[in-house]
């Protein structure tokens, strides 16, 4: 991930998160994949053996890879061609309890912030509704990051709308894109400490993050917001999520 003023990193650890689910041991090739809007372009970065560690930094790679703010890391047990029509669907480093992840995040000259990341490609046409409780106050810069990756390499544009959850008042609209990381500055909206902003994107799903950067640079904060389904456990969570989204969207778009 690449955002303004920070270096993105991705730490790969070739050790499965558990000892029973996926006992892969064979060498893998680490590819960087980025979209030119028509294809996924592949760049071979390194080979990893079982037990290896590799840090990938955005400032050590060509800027062209990060024009959309996002390039994907894919460990492959096979050689990939230089251009792909779709993201590879073979899951090489994969487990479920827990999910096999890597550590991604941002660094500056003082500190770093980490996030346990992995991404399954999102549907090409889906919506996003999320509540954002991460705005901080004082000597801090607040941004919303929206990450999207789909199997299809095309870069489609859409809107994400910002509302106040209390009065459902529309605040602003920003452009977001598929297969990209979009950075949206939030301090311009003068939120109060009791405000809970709602973000709604009708056509592009994504993983939203709150990114806080101390103006001194000495502290970074990064965490993703939850989808509405996380407000409940067990039962038909997808159905509950649909209901919650429907209830909110009806109110937000009719204002």
């Amino acid at each position, binding site marked *: 991930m690449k955002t303004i003023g920070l270096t993105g990193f991705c730490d790969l*650890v070739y050790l499965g998160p558990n000892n029973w689910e996926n006992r892969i041991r064979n060498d893998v090739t680490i590819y960087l994949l980025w979209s030119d809007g028509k294809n996924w372009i592949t760049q071979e970065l390194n080979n990893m053996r079982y037990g290896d560690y590799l840090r990938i930094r955005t400032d050590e790679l060509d800027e062209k890879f990060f024009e959309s703010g996002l390039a994907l890391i894919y460990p492959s047990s096979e050689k990939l061609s230089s251009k792909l029509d779709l993201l590879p669907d073979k899951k090489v480093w994969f487990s479920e*309890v827990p999910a096999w992840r890597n*550590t991604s995040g941002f660094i500056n000259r003082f500190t770093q*912030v980490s996030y346990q990341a992995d991404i399954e490609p999102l549907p090409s046409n889906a919506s996003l509704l999320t509540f954002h*409780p991460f705005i901080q106050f004082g000597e801090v810069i607040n941004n919303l990051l929206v990450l999207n990756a789909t199997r299809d390499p095309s870069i489609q544009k859409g809107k994400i709308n910002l509302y106040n959850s209390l009065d459902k008042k529309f605040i602003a609209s920003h452009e977001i894109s598929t297969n990209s990381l979009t950075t949206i500055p939030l301090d311009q909206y003068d939120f109060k400490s009791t405000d809970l902003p709602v973000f709604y994107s009708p056509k592009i799903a994504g993983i939203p993050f709150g990114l806080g950067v*101390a103006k001194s640079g000495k502290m*970074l904060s990064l965490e993703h917001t939850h989808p509405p389904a*996380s*407000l409940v456990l067990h039962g038909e969570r997808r159905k509950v999520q649909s209901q919650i989204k429907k209830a909110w969207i009806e109110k937000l778009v009719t204002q």
Partner: protein
Amino acid sequence: MTDVNIKALKFKRKIKLAFYVRKKLAKVPSNKHAVISDLFPIKQDDKWNTEFEFLNIANLILGDNLNGIPHKAEIHFFDADGNHLGFSKIEISSMGRKTLRLAEFLKFNFTSAKTFAVFHDIQNYSLNIGKSFVAERGYCGYEYNRLGVKGYVHGNLDAVTLSDGKIIPIGNKGFISRYFTVQHCLTGPSNYEFIFTNPTSRKVKITPNIMYENSKWKKLQPFSINTKGSYNFNLYVNSGEKVFVRFKSKLYLARPVVFRVSNDSMDVFHG
């Protein structure tokens, strides 16, 4: 891969799941009106501040502040041994966000608290959530060294339920020990703190293993955690060192919250 191979792999995986994860990660509460919460770690001393983002969950589910009355909840505190220290009532007046400073709760009471749970009062709401349960797995903010900016981390495990006034752990564990390898390479100079909570109804034993780069796994002293208790495992990593860490236990998901303190700053994330 042939269809036969795919079927064989799926079958192998089902057999493994039957051995390692026989049940859901969290039990289904027997009381259909029960509410669920994580056990959130508290870091509160001269160097640390902990805050919690209290949201009006019932009305977030309904899509509006329909009943117009304040939303209520209880915040319950536990010490490292899992003893329930008591609770405070909290409320939020409208749709929005209320940032709770844990220092205010711990000033006079609950001074030995190491974790807390938040149980929402949903009895005045008609939530159409079928067989689902309202769950608080929200966000703690941790401030280090008065840096003025918090590191946020969301709830890690659906740990406990409040049902008819009783707090019941709902995490499951298996009968076979298994490793959880933290998906993070520890780098120095830094002090790492791994905070574990026990969401199960029995004491659990956890054995840390560490491995320096190009070395072999080394077993460290095991520790035990009472039901609803917590434990902080600390590890200092010197400059230039690269260390991996894994934890052996019967927990389905021995996933700690990880704090990394380095260069007068900190980073917090899930292991």
